[in-house]
């Protein structure tokens, strides 16, 4: 096995699970997350000579996030235009657990806002790093994060969330 293969194999062994989880949070689908990760890693491997000098992880992360956003946008168009009807929304259950409610709210966010939340609160990236991944300004990250958090609060109903949090920790 060549040095490149050893290096790449070590990187994948160390980081693939974390990247897979990020991909899942960004796209909301397990199969698509696996596809996103494999596609991103293939591109990374092809460019390993250039990518590995710094940390390859930001590069992979950027490919995954941008591909997830792009696919989500296309899916939005594909699902709305041909069917010309708004997506059905299931009735709000009162006894669903916090995880389910929050994940549904996260999935309901526009793709770029969802990406900001995932990068900021899952990857723990700074606003500057998030802006670099998304190729936008820090101001855009701030405004997208603010809007996303407002939607999460609004969609969930802060009181009920706090109630659930309280119950969960009781």
């Amino acid at each position, binding site marked *: 096995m060549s040095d490149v293969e050893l290096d*790449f194999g070590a990187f*994948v062994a160390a980081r693939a699970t974390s990247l*897979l989880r990020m991909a*899942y949070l960004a796209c909301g689908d397990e199969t698509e997350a696996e596809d996103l990760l*494999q596609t991103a890693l293939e591109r990374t491997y092809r460019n390993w000579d250039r990518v590995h000098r710094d940390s390859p992880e930001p590069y992979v992360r950027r490919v995954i996030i941008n591909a997830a956003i*792009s696919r989500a946008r*296309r899916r*939005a168009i594909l699902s709305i235009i041909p069917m010309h009807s708004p997506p059905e929304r299931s009735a709000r259950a009162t006894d669903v657990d916090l995880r389910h409610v929050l994940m549904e709210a996260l999935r309901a966010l526009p793709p770029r806002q969802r990406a900001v939340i995932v990068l900021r609160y899952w990857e723990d990236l700074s606003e500057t790093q998030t802006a670099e991944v998304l190729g936008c300004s820090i101001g855009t990250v701030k405004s997208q994060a603010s809007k996303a958090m407002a939607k999460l609060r609004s969609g969930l109903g802060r009181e009920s*969330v706090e109630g659930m*949090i309280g119950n969960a920790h009781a």
Partner: protein
Amino acid sequence: MPTLEETIRQVMADETARLHAAPDLAERVMRSSRATRNRARVLTLATSVAVITAAPVGYLTLNSVATTGQAPSISATPEPPAIDDTPPVASAPPELGDLGDGREFGHVKVGYLPERLKWSNWSVDFGDSYSTAYNFDGDKNGFYCVQIYMYEEAAVQDIDSQIQRYRDEGEGEEVILGDRTGYLVVQDVGEDGGKGTPTLFLTMGAEQRAAIMFSPTYAKEFSGAEAVNTELKKIAEGLTPAN
């Protein structure tokens, strides 16, 4: 009490705890890349040094690249076929195939595109409706700038109903493009990054409609809605039936 941010972190950790990358992922990625590279080499050879051997391509083991000037060696042992080097496609919609520069797809030709746009290498084909897109770098996984969605035969009814709904709701405006008509509207299809998706629906005939869309992000590159609409109209005017 934890903050919402802390709760989100915990929920995301709980939700993803079950997910683990496949142990053979690195090997699959590398095998896939090798297979892609070998296919490219075989194609290069097929077009440049096809006279070297009459042996079946599958029985070539390529120890050198054609561009080095060295002849490839021939082995009696074929390389094992890469059986899992392509991502699963079961759930992916069918594509229109290689469209070259993307200026002709399905039953239409694209006569005008804004500057710098290239075919994105992405398309879908549902038979009586199909679509492709254009962006800056031709990256299939990149952002789209302009997408053209075609509706034909039975699919025309769907899109006509949608346009009628916009009319009924007072959204958008009728436009005339030479001897054809269209409908301009900013759709809310769930995209973020802007105020919606500027769209021009074009009637190309009794059984053919087109929806020409600008991504909200791309639309921001223009000076305003009027400039975007001007570009949409130019694309519509250049969109004609293929021979």
